């Protein structure tokens, strides 16, 4: 079955009806080049989200606020206003399933890790010193995989790589079962969040750019996500970047 480009984009944007979506999923499963195109388009969403997203969390210039009769930023509790706008923004994007999965995100880690454990494999996430840390294949992927050049049969794919406001390198990841975000500290990849993979858990999946993982990534980002060159340098330098 051939999938025209419009339909593939609509799939990536979560705009397809159930039957069409399943048809595209089946086609993708058999076709490496289609799958690669889906990945490229998801990365594009993430890149655009990472680039423009921060604009919506910056303080609005006084000259614009003044037009609406509002006080200048400095005279009010700046943080409160910024975070209110941010929260509204999040609520807007996190509609429907997004909202549910965002709320459930903190709980899902245990469930997902548990499922994989039952499958008889080493769970990808373990607790260590009271922290959730990546291990096994997930840790390997976080440590060595390049989003710009993923291995053909990778179980886990890396999305964005960025520095967070604490100066830690962080990466988003996605496998067939779950997706999440981990940051490197104390020589390990600490899992900040994990959630069931959107295509599986969210029938009305809308956009990678505003998934709970991407939302969290955007809030944590200190600057633009790494480009391919910076990502390669970080992997080759064994993540000896940032503050530590």
């Amino acid at each position, binding site marked *: 079955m051939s999938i025209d480009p*419009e339909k593939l984009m609509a799939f990536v944007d979560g705009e397809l009806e159930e039957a069409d979506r399943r048809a595209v999923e089946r086609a993708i499963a058999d076709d490496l080049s289609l799958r690669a195109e889906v990945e490229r*388009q998801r990365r594009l969403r993430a890149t655009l989200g990472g680039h423009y997203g921060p604009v*919506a969390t910056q303080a609005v210039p006084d*000259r614009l606020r003044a037009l*609406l009769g509002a006080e200048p930023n400095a*005279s009010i*509790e700046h943080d409160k206003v910024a975070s209110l*706008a*941010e929260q509204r923004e999040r609520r807007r994007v996190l509609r429907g399933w997004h909202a549910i999965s965002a709320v459930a995100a903190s709980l899902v880690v245990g469930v997902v890790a548990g499922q994989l454990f039952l499958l008889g494999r080493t769970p990808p996430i373990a607790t260590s010193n009271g922290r959730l840390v990546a291990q096994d294949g997930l840790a390997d992927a976080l440590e060595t995989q390049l989003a710009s050049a993923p291995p053909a049969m990778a179980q886990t794919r890396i999305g964005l790589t960025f520095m967070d406001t604490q100066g830690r390198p962080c990466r988003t990841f996605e496998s067939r079962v779950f997706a999440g975000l981990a940051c490197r500290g104390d020589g390990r990849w600490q899992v900040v969040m994990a959630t069931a993979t959107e295509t599986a858990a969210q029938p009305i999946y809308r956009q990678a750019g505003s998934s709970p993982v991407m939302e969290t990534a955007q809030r944590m980002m200190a600057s633009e996500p790494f480009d391919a060159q910076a990502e390669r340098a970080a992997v080759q330098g064994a993540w000896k970047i940032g503050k530590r």
Partner: protein
Amino acid sequence: MGPSVSSQKTIGHKTIGVCRLQAFERELLTLLPRLRRFARALTRDGTDADDLCQTALERALKARHQWLEGTRLDAWMYRIMRNCWIDEVRARTRRGQTFVPEEAGANVGVAAHEDIERRAELCDVDRAMERLPAEQREVIALVLVEGLAYREAAEILDIPIGTLTSRLTRGRQALVKLLEPA
């Protein structure tokens, strides 16, 4: 949600409380972060983006009676902003002020030198967006940056869904080529 007490205090010689703002202004204030993001994607430039926001807000305040309460203010604002930007691009083109090759035609005029300098500072994403035709860029901005559904974006732009999806597809393919050269 009521305004906090702390927002009502004296600034200089006048007192303005957020609670005195009318619902219309208050809602616009809430939308402002998103409007700035949309403006940034349309204009690819922080200063142009805030100028565009200002023009659009002024136009919206003047035309406030045309907004039907209960309908989506964000969609109304996106539409106004987009029209304002089209006007601005036309005006600059008339003045011969070049800023984007695609929108302004050939790179001639006194501002060309500054323009080149400015563009050197743009990052990859801005540069890639700049190279898209305007009608693809606005679709990308609404769907991929603002996260609107296809139907919502098509309504704002007054185009059929099929036109939207084909512009979106061409724009996406071009961006991927520019940002991830094979």
